Every structure is written in C-alpha cells, then in structure tokens.
C-alpha cells in the first residue's frame, strides 16, 4: 500500500490515525477538572501542531538529510504568509490559490537564497542564510511597511479589492478564509459526559495537508534523491569523484524544504489571515532548528514530535498562573501549599522559558538522538523486560 515499505507504511498509518483523532487524544481530561489545563485539543493549538509539523518536516529534508543547517528558514514561512494574505486581499478568500501562491513564492525565494548560500558550506552557509533572513525581517518590519504591514502585520481590511468574492460580508464584517464554502474556523463540539471534543474544519484541512506532506517526505527519504542527499551529508568529496554534482542536489533539497516552509506559512495565514514580520526573525528560525534536533534530526517522525513538544509548552505552560497553582494544591495545608507553589512558580507561567531551556539541555545531554531516541530506549527497555519475564528461571540473555 502507498508504495512504501512496511515499517514506513505503519508509521504513516499511525501518524494518520493520531492526527485524525487528535481532538480526542489531546483532550484526555474532562472539562472543569484541574487537569483540564493540560488539554491541548482546541482548534488553534491543534492547527499549530500540524502546521509547525509541516515546517519541521520540510526543514528536516534539508538539515536531516544533507546536514546543511539553515538558520534562516523562517523567512520562507514569512514570505509564504505574506503571499497568502495578499492573495486573500486581492483574489479570493479561497485557501487553495493562496496556498499555491505561498508555496510558489517561497520556492522562488529559496531558489535565489539557496543558489547564493549554497556556494558555502558548514557554518558559513548557516550564517549566510541567517543574514538573508534577518535582512528580510528587518526590511519587512520597517522600510517595506507598505507591502508587509510592518509592526502591525499584514491584515485584511474592509475595503480590500477582492476580485472573486465580496469585500465585506452582508453583516459588514471581513470574510473569513474558506475552502469552497467551508469556513476554516468552523467547528463543532462533541460532548461525551464531562468531555468536550472540538472538531475544526481548519484543523482537518491542515491535518490532511500534513499527512500528505509527511507521505511525500517518506517518499523523498526513501528515493534515490534522498539517498543522494544522505550521501552529500556523509561525504561530499566522494560524491564529486563519483561523477555527481552536489550543488543541484543540495539546491533541490533547499528549495523543497523552502516550499514546505512556504506551505506552512500559507496554512498559517489561511487559519488566521494575518502575517507578521516576527515570523521571519532569527528566533523563529532557531525554533524550527530546535524542533528538529529535539525530536530527532534525520528521522521521519522526530521533527513532528519536536514541533508538538515546543508548541505545547509555549501555549499550555505559559498559561498556568499562580492562581491555578493554588487551586491545584488547595488540598494541602496552607503553609505547605504556599511552599510548593513558591517552588513551582518560577518554572511555569511566565517562567515557561526557563523550563523549556532546562528541558532542551536534558534532552541534548541524555538523548542525543532526540525524542525519537528516547522512544527507542523505552521500547528496547520494555522488550528487555518482556524477555526477562519470558525466561522463568530469571536468567538474562547474554548481551549481543
């Protein structure tokens, strides 16, 4: 099925199921319970999970396969968003042309920037990409304000000259992005006892795109082209003396991953029609690097896990405030409650950066292969335990 090997096929199916049932999986705690704070199954965050998943999958095609560390990838996400919003302003509120344009524009930008930056390798390449992205950010924030909206971002207005579709809804509001009549922000809720699950059209649209992107990524990983990219990472010298020109390979990888970023940007704008310059800042580029390495660079699923991990932190941990902490520990005697809250407080809410930093360090120190390696270790540990159980006399098998 899908022309994939068995393990990849299983992985794709698992990812597909997890994505489709995300509204259930991410809302494990009943509404109103103290743990509901940790629920992540609301449309915006679910959309972010998959959109940043796409971004990281694309980044991994470049970094994970070729080893070229781009420090300016957020720029392509940014131009993708701008392209999409301009499409909404000028053409139509349908997301399809907007997303197509954002992929194309991001592809063109990455072709140009990649063509120049790939003349160098290693950290020199990283700094070149960083420089391009920072230039784009700085100009978008300031001089290019008429095109980009500058500080306030590019937004839709009530008087946009939309060619297909009205400038305003009958009620006098700005129309929302949709897919042939399905509005991206539409949701319906499913109530089961104390549990509430939200199904959002935008999320499912993004999820479909993500599964398709993930499938495409698997195909690329397993293709001759993917093999060549891994060969570039392994030994460029041998590539050259094997009659292979590495530049077009790396450039193709750069453009493909730039287009993934543009796709993510286009989807972001489709879910929420605003494009801000901060999306292109180096911190945003650094974030996707962190996502990829944290999840496991070069692995298929790693970047998606990393993206989810960081976005979860950013959106869930940052919202826990001292009042909530006090509620959680209200069952404790007063003095103890205050003490525990005082200890935890620096790490949650406004301290979420601190916790994230500590977790980065832990993962890098103890799990060099990222979260994927963590998963593998747990699996092998479980298998070992299982095999220990299966040998009733308790003798362990000799190590391989």
């Amino acid at each position: 099925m899908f022309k994939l090997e068995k393990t990849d096929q299983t992985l794709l199916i698992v990812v597909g199921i997890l994505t489709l049932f995300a509204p259930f999986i991410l809302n494990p705690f009943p509404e109103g319970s103290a743990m509901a704070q940790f629920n992540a199954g609301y449309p915006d965050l679910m959309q972010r999970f998959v959109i940043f998943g796409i971004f990281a999958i694309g980044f991994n095609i470049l970094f994970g396969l070729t080893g070229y560390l781009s420090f300016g990838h957020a720029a392509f996400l940014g131009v993708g968003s701008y392209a999409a919003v301009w499409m909404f302003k000028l053409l139509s509120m349908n997301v399809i042309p907007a997303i197509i344009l954002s992929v194309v524009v991001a592809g063109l930008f990455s072709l140009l920037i990649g063509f120049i930056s790939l003349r160098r390798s290693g950290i020199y390449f990283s700094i070149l990409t960083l420089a391009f992205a920072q230039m784009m950010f700085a100009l978008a924030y300031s001089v290019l304000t008429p095109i980009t909206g500058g500080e306030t971002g590019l937004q839709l207005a009530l008087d946009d000259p939309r060619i297909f579709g009205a400038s305003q809804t009958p009620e006098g509001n700005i129309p929302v992005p949709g897919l042939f009549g399905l509005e991206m922000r539409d949701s319906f809720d499913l109530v089961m006892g104390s549990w509430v699950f939200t199904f959002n059209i935008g999320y499912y649209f993004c999820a479909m795109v993500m599964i398709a992107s993930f499938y495409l990524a698997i195909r690329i990983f397993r293709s001759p082209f993917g093999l060549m990219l891994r060969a570039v990472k392994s030994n460029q010298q041998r590539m050259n003396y094997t009659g292979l020109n590495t530049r077009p390979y790396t450039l193709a990888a750069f453009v493909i991953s730039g287009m993934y970023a543009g796709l993510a940007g286009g989807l972001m704008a489709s879910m929420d029609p605003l494009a801000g310059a901060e999306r292109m800042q180096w911190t945003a580029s650094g974030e996707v690097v962190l996502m990829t390495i944290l999840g496991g660079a070069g692995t298929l699923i790693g970047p998606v896990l990393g993206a989810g991990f960081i976005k979860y932190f950013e959106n869930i941990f940052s919202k826990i405030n001292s009042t909530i902490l006090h509620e959680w520990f209200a069952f404790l005697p007063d003095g103890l409650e205050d003490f525990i809250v005082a200890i935890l407080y620096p790490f949650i809410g406004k301290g979420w950066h601190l916790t994230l930093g500590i977790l980065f360090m832990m993962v890098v120190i103890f799990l060099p292969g990222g979260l994927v390696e963590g998963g593998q270790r747990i699996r092998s540990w479980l298998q070992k335990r299982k095999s220990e159980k299966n040998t009733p006399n308790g003798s362990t098998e000799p190590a391989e």
Partner: protein
Amino acid sequence: MGILEVKNVGKRFGGLQALSDVNLSVRENSVHAIIGPNGAGKSTLLNCLVGKLIPDTGSVMFDGQSVLGRAPYEINQMGISRVFQTPEIFGDLTVLENMMIPCFAKRDGAFELNAISAIPAQRDIMEQAEHMLEDMNMADKRHMHAAAMSRGDKRRLEIGMCLSQQPRLLLLDEPTAGMARADTNNTIDLLKQISDERDITIAIIEHDMHVVFSLADRITVLAQGTPLVEDDPQNIKGNPKVREAYLGESA
C-alpha cells in the same frame, strides 16, 4: 597515443615549483605506476588529472579531450575514477547503498531529481550493486554501516564503487598505504584480477616497491616535480638514475 596524455604540465605554489614540464603517456589497458620520493609531486600531479587542481601550464588530455577547467564530477563522468589514499566512502550509509550511488551516477548522470520512486523499485541499480558486491566478496556485509568496516574492507568497497562506474581509467593514490602485509597482498591480488578481467586502464601512485613491481606494466619515476624516466619495470630496477634519486635513498 595513450588514453591519458599529459604534456608539459607545470604547477607552482607560491615559491615552490611543485611540477615542471611533466610529460606522461598512459597506454590503454595497461597498469602504469608513478613512483617517486616524498615531495616529488605525485599527489599534485594526480590532483591535476582529476580536476582538483588546475595546472599553470601544459595540457591534460583524456581520450582526446582536455580535462582542464572541468569540475571533478565532470572528469569522472568522462570515465576517470579515483581511489584515495584513505578510503573515501559514505560512512553513514550501508555497504549496499554505497555501491548503489555510483550505479546511479553512471545511469542518471551528474544530477537527476528522482525524488518519488522508491529505491527498491530501481531493479537494474539494485542488481548491478549486488553483483558488484559479490564480485568484491562483500555480499555478506551489504547491510553493514560502511564506517564500521575494517580498513581493508573499506578499500575494497571504494575500489568496487569505482569499478561499478565502469571507468576507462582508474587512478589509485597509494592504495596500500598504512595496510598490514596481508591486506596489501589481498589488494594487489584484487587489482591484478581487475586488470586482467576488465577492459580498464590503471594508473597507480605508489610508494611501496613491492606493490609497484607486482602490478605495473610501465613506470614513471618522478623526482622534484619532473619525470626522471619512463620505462618498463625491469629497466627501472636497473636504472642508476632511479637508484640514485629514489631507491638508493630508501635502501
């Protein structure tokens, strides 16, 4: 007229004349050794042949075409393969994958965006690679990580990779450097076998006289960046100039 014709090649690095007036003709289907003491310019000459360096003067013709100014991958596509002093292989890939890459390069050229089809679907490539692994006696290691192999196996793999491109000229840069005696003899046997069984020209740069005299049909002696003499092995052995410049020094 040899398959490789080097005419009046000179190369300067700052104040050092690394090569001057090098003339060399490698006959088709022969094994041609280039020997010389350290610093004689052997590696510089080799680098000029594969496009890593561009000589200041002279010409390098391969099969009637100039190689000068071409990138290494273009020269390789013309039919020249190179084996390095320390094996250059794809350490992160499996042995089989290593072997497939030159097959792709041979079939698809310097660049081919083949991003969708699965590798196992490339039956012809798989067959070629498997076949070459068997030729190299490495079929049992096909799923091993290349970096995890012994040096001798790495060398064997590298030679196999070069051969699977079906090159017309195989350049070897001290292929037995740093090898144990047994590995060296294995490599000699392998090269002999290749030279006998295949329609291929071999040019070898070597320090080890044992290797040179067991393989070479013809020998060029390089000293101080310029060829001293070019002759058959038995004549080289008796040549006093060579003895003085090279053998005498090591004896």
